[in-house]
């Protein structure tokens, strides 16, 4: 048992932090997706290939590495498709795709050229060659170059280029400023992927773990901003952080954050065969804590907390979205109970 990050992990975190420090600040953080050029630059830094399996030319980064990167993204509220594009879609193709599929889709992801999106719901029909029907909301769907589409009952998955004939998409703006899509397929030719339901679930767990780490990062920022605020903000002649009720509230945030971080760490570090259950447990815990923390951070900021002007309001929006992805805390708890 050891919780010290390796030298490589420390370097990785520093690199991402430095990269983001030049770009993200309290005025722009969390306003919407980071510029596409910044995403490309992260790819050029080798971040994505670091996380992808060696079989696909990556460096085989583990979940605990992904968590370090994702937490840094969350801390500076850099909104990216890391979880969906790199960990879910590219990860799945890298592990289960053919050489051709890997070359076609994973390589450009590594370079930050392509965004891939995952369509996991909706009313889809697949006849072995063509897709018909319509997806539910697909995160980052408008920016995607291709889609990994889960087949009904998760009986495998297929790959579809966004440029395919018969594919149309409608933009759906989400609360965090990202633009998702509803995607419609009219007899769209699809490229089957040799992936079982368990492959899919594993890839989703890796992605979900990254979103949990992003939540932890954003929660940490909101916590720190809130502690700063209550130390500076004065009412009736004293800092509001000197009021007992405010102190206990802040203490609760500290507790929530520590407990959440514990769940994230455990989910990142368990053996692979426990990953799905543990990520589900971490999601069930952290997604709930994230909204409670965001709500309290808002309340402790008073009027400024409900505006778009401070990181707290934007962080709240982002946490609202992150906490509800992949079914959210409710679905996670339901899965644990069953």
């Amino acid at each position, binding site marked *: 048992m050891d919780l010290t990050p390796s030298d490589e992990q420390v370097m990785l975190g520093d690199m991402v932090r430095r990269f983001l420090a030049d770009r993200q600040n309290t005025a722009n953080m969390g306003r919407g997706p980071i510029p596409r050029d910044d995403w490309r630059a992260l790819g050029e830094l080798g971040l994505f290939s670091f996380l992808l399996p060696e079989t696909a030319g990556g460096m085989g980064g583990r979940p605990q590495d992904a968590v370090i990167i994702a937490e840094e993204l969350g801390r500076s509220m850099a909104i990216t498709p890391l979880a969906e594009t790199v960990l879910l879609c590219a990860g799945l193709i890298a592990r289960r795709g053919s050489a051709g599929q890997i070359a076609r889709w994973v390589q450009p992801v590594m370079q930050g050229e392509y965004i891939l999106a995952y369509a996991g719901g909706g009313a889809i029909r697949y006849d072995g060659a063509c897709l018909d029907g319509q997806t539910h*909301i697909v995160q980052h769907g408008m920016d995607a170059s291709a889609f990994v589409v889960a087949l009904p009952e998760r009986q495998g998955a297929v790959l579809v280029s966004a440029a395919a004939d018969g594919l149309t998409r409608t933009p759906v703006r989400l609360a965090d400023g990202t633009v998702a899509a509803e995607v419609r397929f009219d007899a769209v030719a699809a490229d089957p992927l040799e992936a079982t339901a368990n492959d899919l679930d594993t890839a989703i767990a890796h992605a979900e773990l990254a979103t949990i780490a992003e939540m932890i990062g954003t929660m940490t920022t909101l916590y720190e901003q809130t502690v700063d605020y209550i130390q500076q903000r004065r009412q009736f002649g004293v800092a509001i952080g000197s009021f007992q009720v405010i102190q206990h509230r802040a203490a609760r945030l500290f507790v929530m954050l520590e407990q959440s971080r514990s769940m994230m760490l455990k989910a990142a570090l368990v053996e692979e065969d426990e990953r799905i259950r543990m990520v589900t447990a971490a999601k069930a815990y952290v997604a709930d804590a994230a909204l409670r923390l965001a709500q309290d951070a808002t309340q402790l900021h008073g*009027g400024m907390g*409900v505006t778009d*002007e401070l990181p707290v309001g934007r962080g709240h929006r982002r946490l609202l979205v992150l906490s509800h992805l992949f079914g959210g805390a409710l679905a996670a708890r339901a899965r644990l109970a069953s």
Partner: protein
Amino acid sequence: MDLALSPAQAAFRDEVRAFLRDALPEHLRHGARLTSGVFVEPDIGREWQAILEARGWLVYHWPRDAGGPGWTPIQRWIFEKECAEAGTPALPGMGLKLVGPVLYRFGTETQKAEYLPKLRNGEHFWAQGFSEPGAGSDLASLRTRAVRDGDHYVVTGQKIWTTQAQFANRLFCLVRTDPEVKPQRGISFLLIDMASPGVTVRPILSASGDHELNEVFLDEVRVPVANRVGDEGQGWTIAKFLLDNERGGSSFGPQLIADLARLRALAGPFEGELVTRATRLALEAEALEMTELRTLIELEAGTPPGPRTLVTKLIASEIRQGIDELAVDAFGLAGLQLPAERPFYGADVPAPVGSRDAQIAAGRYLNSRAWSIFGGTSEIQLTVIAKNAVGL
């Protein structure tokens, strides 16, 4: 002890219900349902205001000698309950509920003649200039200065959290007219034409993307002395009267009950944890309605209401936030939509995923956090309850 409506009350309820069935247009009901902000959009509010004014029921909470219909507390409650169930829009409250009563209580005859008709016919849209940056809930530390210059005051300062100031053509405002006396005694109450030179409005966008809040900058704005309500230095008294009106006044329970029932109909039947949350919220709202009704029944009987009245805003805020969070969870992924276009019932809003109600859920959720902050934070409510109800 008896909870049944009297025959006269039941007849009144039927009359209100019949009126709402006939007079509430579908597009107003639709617009009310799709309002994400805390306040009604002016287009909808104005139209509904005119319909009510035509019926003589707009200023239903004003006393008869101020032009109200002379309803008793229970009649007002019946009216509000029926409106909530019918899904009427809210009314622009700054004028009707806040400055209106101040004018009929403290205004000169000239002021009443000038302002009350325009308030009622919608020509004047009012905003409230109480809060200032850094002052929070502490009115005594007010810094906006009004210096007498002949028949005018010259007003300089800054107001914040001014809701719908971008729509308003009139601002009622607390200003410091005498910096020498005790803080509470140097304050006066002014009516300011928003078109006056020196008035600037800066929007404060909400996290939801809605534009409801503003800063209002007052830079040597000349305000006729005739626009002062009450005496110089009487502003504190007037403000207390106004805030008491704001905090008493309407009931929260009926609207919350109706909103939860609508959500249940739109997004239900719920499953798993949502069942428990919905049931608990419904119980809390039912209890709140009865808690409010107990006070109204006392008022109706001429008994002064006890400290129980202090609890309603606290509870209402929590139920409101609970309902709006329940909606987001009930709509799932579709509840994460948040178009940039406003209003949600407008022509420019993209077609929703799921339903319009799903599309509005995230905005509502974010905006409802304001309930426990503005008009006295929940923390302040609890302190007031501890002092005045518990007796600590």
